[in-house]
Structure formats: structure tokens, C-alpha cells
């Protein structure tokens, strides 16, 4: 993550989040998909929050991608995303459906099969 060093570091992350480091909700993952609610007004949002909404209006993005576009650390991005979910500007959904627990019967059969082979 080399990035352009001249771009980084002008506005520091604590100013972006106003000193907060904990997201208001702990539901974000690197691959959580974020999409914007198109009918919400953007007035009063800080530049970063506004930009997140604008980016996500074009199509859902993962948290990692949002952070990449904003050139902000992922953990800082999560704080901003938490605020936006709270204010109703964006909604999130898990990207990948949870993998079902493997069937213990199946595992047992695999084990038997392996033993039979060896």
C-alpha cells in the first residue's frame, strides 16, 4: 500500500473521525458490501462521508474498496460507515453467505473412506 505520499497525511484520520476509533456498530468486515440509499440528502455530511455515499451510489462496494478509494485505513473507514448506517445513508449486507456447517455424517464417511484406503 505505497500510495502517493504527497496525498497522504494532510488531513489526519483523527480529524476525519473527530477523534473516535470505535465504530458505532461492529458489523463490518473487509468484504461487507455497502450500498447507498439514494434518497438521503448529503447536506451536512463531512467530505469523507459524502464521498462514501457518492461512491456507493454507483453500485455496491466492499468495505476494503471504500477504504482504498478514500485512501483511509480500513479501521477508520469502519467508523465512518458506522455513522452512515446510523444516519440511514447507507445499508450493508454480508458479501458471502455463511458456509453451512459440514455434516458430521459426511465427515465420518470421509474418515472411513480414508482408513479403508490406507
Amino acid at each position, binding site marked *: *500500500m505505497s*500510495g*502517493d*505520499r*504527497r*496525498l*497522504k*497525511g*494532510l*488531513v*489526519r*484520520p*483523527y*480529524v476525519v*473521525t*473527530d*477523534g473516535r*476509533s*470505535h*465504530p458505532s456498530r461492529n458489523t463490518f468486515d*473487509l*468484504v461487507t*458490501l455497502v450500498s447507498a440509499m439514494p434518497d438521503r440528502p448529503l447536506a451536512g455530511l463531512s*467530505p469523507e462521508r459524502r*464521498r462514501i455515499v*457518492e*461512491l456507493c*451510489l*454507483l*453500485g*455496491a*462496494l*466492499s468495505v*476494503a*474498496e471504500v*477504504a*482504498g*478509494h478514500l485512501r483511509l*485505513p*480500513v*479501521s*477508520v473507514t469502519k*467508523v465512518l460507515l458506522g455513522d452512515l448506517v446510523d444516519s440511514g445513508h447507507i445499508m450493508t449486507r454480508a*458479501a*458471502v453467505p455463511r458456509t453451512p456447517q459440514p455434516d458430521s455424517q459426511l465427515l465420518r464417511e470421509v474418515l472411513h473412506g480414508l482408513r479403508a*484406503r490406507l
Partner: protein
Amino acid sequence: MTPHIPDAVSWCLAVGAPAAAVLLLRQRRITGSLGERIGALEASVAARDEAAHRLASVQAPALAAAPHAAPHDLPPAADARLAGTAFAGHLHSVLEQFAGAAALARDRADQSAKTALKGAVRSLQGLANEQQLSISDMQDRHDDPDVLRDLLEIDHANSQFGRRAQAIAVLCGSWPGRQRRVSALSDVVRGAKSRIRDYRRVEVRTQHELAVVSRAVEPVVLAVAELLDNAARHSQPNTTVEVNLQPAHNGACVVIDDAGVGMDEREIRRAGQLLSGQRAVDVTQLGDPPQFGFAVIGVLAARYGFSVSVDTRSPYGGVRAVLFLPSALLTQPEPETESQPAAAALPAPAPAAPRTAAPAPAEAFPAAPLGQTVGGLPKRRRRHASPEQAAAVRPAADAPLGSEADWDAAWGRSAEDTARRMGAFARGTRAGRAATTDPEGTPQA
């Protein structure tokens, strides 16, 4: 013969007495005039003594103490009795030489203090910058909110430290030290906000589509940071410092209002002198503790061509500071997509997550058309050309380019191409697994 003697005596007396009287009178006149001359000379010597004494005990110390006084600023060396005499001239030349020597000594002291400070501060500045980069890297690497909280605190302290070092360096004649890209004026103000202790109290009210040219970004950030720091330090901790950005006829203004104690006439006059940047700053005269703020702003304003004024007309009772940026230092903001072509060339998924596999967005969600801001500027570019675009270009581009490598080189990789390769890979591994029968996994078919 004897009767003639008295006659002779009386004759002598008759002749001698008037002569003696004349001589006596003359002598008395001479004595009188000599007495007067002696009196005048004594007065003159006393005046010279007094003048010499004043030179030694009043004027020379005054010249030595006042930083920028010249001999003609002082009251005249001799009183009226010595006016126009050679002695007065000599005294004056002594005074001038002394003033010259004092100024020279002061300059030398100032120069050597500046050189020593510059050297020391430059290494501190380098360390602060290095530390900021490693803090940024750590912020990227760690995902834990508790770690982030600590990192933000360290980052905040380091930014303030860096600003102090930078201010001293500027005062000693160095450059502000970092090159930045064209930045939005609101980001410049927030950058300044990043560098002061009470940043939470600063409210940036208005936002405009104005940007500051690359070479002026860091100086303006530094000047605004000093103004914000002053405003925050001289007002109650529960008040806010308000920043408004106003476009003006031939430039733009950053207006900073605080609700603090304000400044009196003398302070405002002194601030005005320092902010004008006309007078060279003497680092040995900054007081204890040294007050850099206005002096640094003055140096930067004179060097980069913006201007700063302070007065007591804040609507909240405190000080209003106005930083005026002429049009020469302003420009149009660069579109946000500036850095996207670099990302577009990368085959890697998201730049923010190098070690974690984020799903390729183009697969899950078909590429959206290019967005536009309200002002008509392109908003952002997807990493792949949309299928329609690719389909439209491909037949025409195929013929001249020929090989797939050329195609890849010219276009990155199209979505179809990627899909085809992935498909081939999947089919290949499936076929390989189906054909494998031995435990080593060597294909037998």
C-alpha cells in the same frame, strides 16, 4: 640742589600716577574678561562632561538594548551649548560606530542562533515525518479499534510536534519542507486543524470548490494552523473556533473567529508589524517563552504572497483573523479520479486489502457507467471497461493488435478474457482431479 628733590618727586608722581591708574584700569578689564572666558570654558567643559556621561550611561545602553534603534532615533547627544562644535560631531560619530558594532554583533548572534537552530530542527523535522509515515502504515495494518485509538493519539501528538519543528525551521529561513499536491481549500483548513491540540473545537462551516496550488499548500496549512492554535489557546475550552471560507473578488479568504479574550491596541499593533513580514525576525527577541506564531505567519505570508490580518471584530467578542489568498495561489480542484488510472492498470483486487482477498466488484456487480459530479467532473472509474464498451471496441481493435498479449498490454484485461481464463483454469483443475487416482495426485490420463 636739595630743594629740587621734592619737585622732582612730585613731578614723577604727577606723571606716574595717571599712568599707573591707566595700567590698573586696563589690568582690571583684562582680568574681568579673562574671568568671563574662564567661566565660559568651565561651562563648556561641564557640558562636554555631561555629554560624555550621557553617551556612556544612557545612549550607548539604549542603543545596545533596542533591537532596531538607530542613533537618530535617540535624543541629541549634546545640549545647545555644544551644537555645531567639533566635539558634538565626534560624539555623534562615536555613537554611530557603536550602533554599527552593536548591530553587527546582533546580526552575528542572530545568524549563528538561526544556523544552530536550523540544523537541530531539521533533524527533528525529518524524524517527525518518518514517524508520521510509520504511524500511517500502522493505521493501515491494524484493524483493532483499541489499537487505532492509541495510534490516533500518537498521531495527534506527532502532528503537533512536527508543526512546532516546522515553524522554527521556517523562522530560521528554511522551507516548510513538504511538497503536496493541489488540495481543496477545505482540506487545507482541516489539515491545519489536524496539527493543533484542540482540534475538536474547530468547526469548518462552509465548503467551496476552491483548491490551493501545490507549492502554497504546506505554507498555508502552517499559517492557518498557527492562527487556529492562537484562537483555541486564547479562548475558553468550551467555546468553538469557527472557520468560514469565503470567495473574494480576486482570491479567497479563510476567516477564523474565536470567542476568546481578544487583544488590546498594543498587541494588535505588534501583531500587525509581525504579520506584515516586512521586518526581519530576530530569533533572539521572541521572548521567553518564545512566541513564534505571528512571526512565522509573517515570514510565510511575505514569502508566498498571501496576507493575514487580525483585529478585535469577532462577532463572538474574541479575535477575528483573516487569511487572504490571492487568485495566483488558487486553482481548480483536481478531479478525484486523478489517481485511478494507476489503480486501473493493477490486476490486483482492492488496493486497500493486499493480503485479504476481497471479491472482485466487477464480477459481483456489473460495472456502473462513469459517474459525474454536479459540476460535470468525472467521478470515478471502474477497474474494468464495461462489457458494452469492451464489446464495442474489441472487433475493431482485434485486427491491428493481433495477439492477445498486445490486447492485454493495450487494455489491461477485458472482463470476458478474465472470465475465459478463469473458466479454463477451473475446467483444467476439475479434469485433473477427476483423472487422478493415485494418492500423489499425478495425473494418469
